[in-house]
């Protein structure tokens, strides 16, 4: 169970997107995890073969718990059945790589563990398993280092049901061959709102996919079947995300905890600067006239781009405070708070924001907003921001002095774009301006550094064509 943000202590597996035996590549989305804030897509940190899913959908476990075992690609999976174990470290010494905790180390690349050779069962055991028709990948091993012994194989063979049931398959667990239940994001959202458990829903969409109408039908059925009829047992149980009311409460608590920690630990200092947006706005206007509506840039996108480039120019504000020192980040991953309809907010990151052309950054931003509100953000997006930019301009405030997201060390605030009387070259004129602010961690930087940042931001916005 990875930490999906500095404020997360535990998570619930909502759904597995892979089955035992499936090949996965590092970065493939393999599970949906529910946290206090949102359902989040989590990727595999390793390339290999899914050996076992340890935590069942619906189970809530602490951060750091082993969720699944993935065999390294070179490993002979047939010989690598790991020992039955409680869902907590340590893993068996020769077990395949486990999904590590990324707690408080957002910048670290997970999955750098040394490759483990698979525990080897003896050729004799393999031969026996073959003769008895036992699949070694699903036999719990009781031998040294979790290897499968002759007794394990015989036990598995004896325990086998006539219909070749998997030895440790619980009643509602799907056979690995069964297709997982597919659910449209909208259906998932509606299910959460209505408090419908996915295991009670019969999909009628293509390939048995669950659609919104199916969820509503299930919600309308007075007594959803608590036990599935035998025919339905081939479906993997999928748990509905937290209902909206509970979500609002847990999200508030998560925000409360993180922000209290920030104010408790981080000595903030604050700076502000009014930026003339004449050049930026006329550039935007010109550009938007020439492009399709869908390619249009909003001022916020240009401001984000400038904020990201400025963070690269003043790297002392881009990174993490770890223990007692600042660790600069190699890239600028821009955290962008997105308010959710219905309350609360999520702060996913736009990766490598300083290197994206404004149009691309804008597309990413739109995509993030859509997915944040649909509850389909990915782990990396929620854990890897190196600096955050909050934009409350649309809400009509002139300036925002934000609270830093630990372990980051700076938060940039953008206020409302307004026309103000501005003196320039001895003349007063009406010009579009925006108030930019910086909240920064005084442990890691001083006001001088912060001032350089805001000046860089302003300079960049005077030359929008270079952004």
């Amino acid at each position, binding site marked *: 169970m990875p930490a999906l943000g500095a404020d997360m202590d535990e998570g619930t597996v909502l759904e597995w997107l892979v089955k035992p035996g499936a090949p996965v590549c590092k970065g493939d989305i393999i599970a949906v995890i529910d946290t206090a804030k949102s359902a989040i897509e989590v990727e595999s940190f390793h390339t290999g073969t899914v050996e076992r899913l340890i935590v069942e959908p619906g189970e809530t476990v602490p951060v750091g718990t082993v969720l699944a075992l993935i065999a390294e690609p070179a490993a002979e999976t047939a010989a690598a059945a790991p020992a039955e174990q409680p869902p907590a470290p340590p893993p068996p010494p020769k077990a395949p790589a486990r999904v590590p905790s990324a707690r408080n180390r957002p910048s670290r690349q997970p999955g750098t563990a040394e490759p483990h050779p698979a525990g080897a069962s003896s050729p004799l055991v393999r031969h026996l398993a073959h003769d008895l028709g036992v699949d070694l990948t699903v036999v719990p091993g009781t031998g040294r280092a979790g290897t499968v012994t002759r007794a394990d194989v015989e036990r598995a063979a004896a325990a086998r049901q006539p219909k070749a049931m998997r030895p440790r398959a619980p009643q509602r667990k799907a056979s690995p061959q069964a297709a997982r239940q597919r659910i449209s994001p909208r259906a998932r959202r509606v299910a959460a709102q209505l408090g419908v458990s996915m295991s009670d829903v019969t999909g009628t969409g293509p390939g048995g996919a669950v659609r919104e109408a199916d969820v509503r039908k299930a919600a309308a059925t007075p007594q959803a079947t608590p036990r599935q009829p035998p025919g339905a047992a081939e479906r993997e149980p999928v748990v509905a995300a937290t209902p909206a009311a509970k979500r609002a409460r847990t999200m508030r608590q998560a925000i409360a905890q993180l922000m209290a920690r920030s104010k408790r630990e981080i000595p903030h200092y604050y700076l502000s600067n009014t930026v003339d947006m004449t050049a930026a706005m006329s550039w935007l206007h010109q550009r*938007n006239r020439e492009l399709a*509506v869908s390619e249009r840039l909003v001022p*916020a996108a240009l401001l984000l781009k400038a904020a990201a480039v400025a963070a690269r120019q003043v790297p002392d504000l881009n990174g993490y405070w770890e223990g007692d020192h600042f660790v600069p980040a190699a890239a600028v991953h821009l955290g962008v708070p997105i308010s959710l309809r219905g309350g609360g907010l999520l702060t996913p990151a736009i990766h490598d924001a300083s290197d994206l052309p404004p149009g691309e950054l804008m597309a990413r*931003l*739109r995509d993030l*907003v859509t997915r944040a509100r649909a509850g389909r953000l990915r782990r990396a997006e929620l854990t890897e921001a190196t600096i955050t930019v909050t934009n409350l301009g*649309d809400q009509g405030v002139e300036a925002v002095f934000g609270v830093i997201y630990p372990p980051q060390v700076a938060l940039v605030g953008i206020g409302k774009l307004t026309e103000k009387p501005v003196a320039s070259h001895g003349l007063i004129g009406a010009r579009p301006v925006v108030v930019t602010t910086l909240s920064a961690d005084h442990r890691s930087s001083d006001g001088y550094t912060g001032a350089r940042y805001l000046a860089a931001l302003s300079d960049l916005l005077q030359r929008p064509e270079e952004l």
Partner: protein
Amino acid sequence: MTPEQARHAIEESLVQVAPDADLGSLGPDADLRDSLELDSLDFLNFIEALSERAGRRIEEDDYPHLATMASAIKFLADR
């Protein structure tokens, strides 16, 4: 576009952007962005959807016409 068609196109576009929007309680002269809490991205999505439905490009310079339901209907119906 008739005013009725225009209203329909606007309402559909708004619902697409803000599915939870309560359009029934929206007065003709209420500010759309404020009442429905649309941020600049939401508003752009609205413009994009509306451009498609109206079958014509809506420029940034036209945004002031789209501030309220009444003004937006007038804007679309006039052309």
